């Protein structure tokens, strides 16, 4: 009986740990989003999938090695929506200072001003989260960039672009919900 109880507690603890590691890196956002009807969409190489609200538009790209999944709620005006771009890229990404500097340099080249850099866990993997902003065609864009490696020498680069500053926290939460739904196929 005690063993059974212990097993339950252990299982619950493991599940909780799994839950928190799933999107632990986003815990600062303290998101509470309402439920929406979603559809599961797989990337062009069937390597991963995301749960996307049914009325969003999704475009899948691939070249010989990289798979890109771009999705957005195009039923809304630009200043009320956001874009999510998820790229699965071949190669090793060690999240050390040199990598962090390279990523920062790339983002700066693309006109992003970096606000904050944070390390944490996402899908039980060590991840790097960068928040940034830029001005483009008189519109403020807030960016959130997430990087994490897989064991099979591929890494994810996920970018959320949130246009305008109206309800941006709420929109980031909606986007984070989509990102947290990421399922990686082995």
């Amino acid at each position: 009986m005690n063993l059974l109880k212990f097993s339950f507690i252990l299982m619950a603890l493991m599940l909780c740990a799994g839950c928190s590691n799933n999107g632990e890196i986003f815990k600062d956002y303290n998101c509470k989003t309402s439920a929406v009807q979603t559809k599961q969409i797989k990337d062009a190489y069937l390597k991963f999938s995301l749960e996307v609200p049914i009325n969003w538009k999704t475009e899948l790209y691939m070249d010989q090695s990289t798979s890109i999944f771009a999705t957005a709620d195009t039923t809304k005006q630009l200043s009320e929506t956001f874009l999510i771009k998820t790229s699965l890229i071949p190669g090793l990404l060690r999240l050390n200072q040199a990598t962090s500097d390279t990523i920062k340099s790339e983002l700066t080249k693309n006109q992003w001003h970096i606000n904050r850099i944070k390390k944490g866990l996402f899908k039980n993997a060590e991840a790097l989260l960068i928040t940034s902003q830029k001005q483009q065609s008189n519109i403020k864009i807030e960016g959130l960039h997430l990087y994490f490696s897989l064991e099979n020498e591929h890494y994810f680069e996920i970018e959320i672009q949130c246009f305008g500053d109206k309800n941006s926290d709420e929109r980031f939460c909606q986007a984070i919900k989509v990102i947290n739904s990421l399922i990686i196929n082995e």
Partner: protein
Amino acid sequence: MIYRGFSFFMVLSFYSLSAQIIDKVEIKTILNANAGYRALEALNDSTVAFANSNGEVGEIALSGKTRYYKIDLPKDSSNHFRAIASTSNYLFALNIESPARLYKFDKQRYNQLGKVVFLDNNPKAFYDAMYFLDDKNGIAMGDPTDDCLTIITTIDGGTTWQKTDCKNLPKIEPGEAAFAASNTNIASSKKNIWIATGGLKSRVFHSANLGKTWNVCVTPFIQGKPTTGIYSMAFYNSKIGIICGGDYTDKSANLNNKAITNNGGKTWKIVANNVLPGYISCVQFVPNSNGKSLIAVGTEGIYLTRNGGNNWTEISTEGFYSIQIVNEHTAFLGGQGTIATLKF
């Protein structure tokens, strides 16, 4: 010079110097509502039909007099309309997301419930535009759900619609899709139909036989990002045409975002490169202008050219999604929460 008057509309009028022609421009809002108006279809010189983002379908006159068609909106959809087309007796509206429903309305009986004449349950269905070439032949197009664009056609005035098999269409390139910006991805002249795409590739599909067979030509248009490409296309006749667009997320970008053809879309030449306008969601020819006068609209303003797209003048900074030009001096404009008239 700005005039403000009347309780429900705003009149904006000013003069601009364009290619040594003075244009007087007047914009008057005739409808205010909490909806997006991207799908407009001119019915005659004084009336435009609309289908909006709230599932409403109707007609509005220059005077602002509006009537709505009766529609039973299903609960499994947000009923967001971005495509509209008409024949002499019927009006058609098509929503963007899945399930896609194509409604047929009797123009003489607007109190009669619109009938769903085509249903696409494919979860990837996303229709962008619709067009009738005459009272019998119509076409609607959407993003690829397989390895080709989604194309449906009718030859019986919209009573029945058939999906074109991918084996009869050119293959779509990875990342190539279309933008449901203003119901102007399709253009036609005589038996020719053209369809414009965007995204990773910006190309123009062409059929010379009412959609029976298709080919595709590459363009020098901006491409390469999910949000770059051709957002709108117009043909003055079977030879002279224009494609416009840019990047929805970078409204001032004006690199390779306007191109013209003088040979029916076989080749395209970039015009007005690196000068305004930037992002354009809709472009239309002014009738009886010999293919020289066009008006383009985007969320940043309204632009006029009198020399076939080579030089453009911003005639208003008021943003709109779509335009339907009904004669040499009048157009209807559709925007966020508004339908307006443009006198030029």
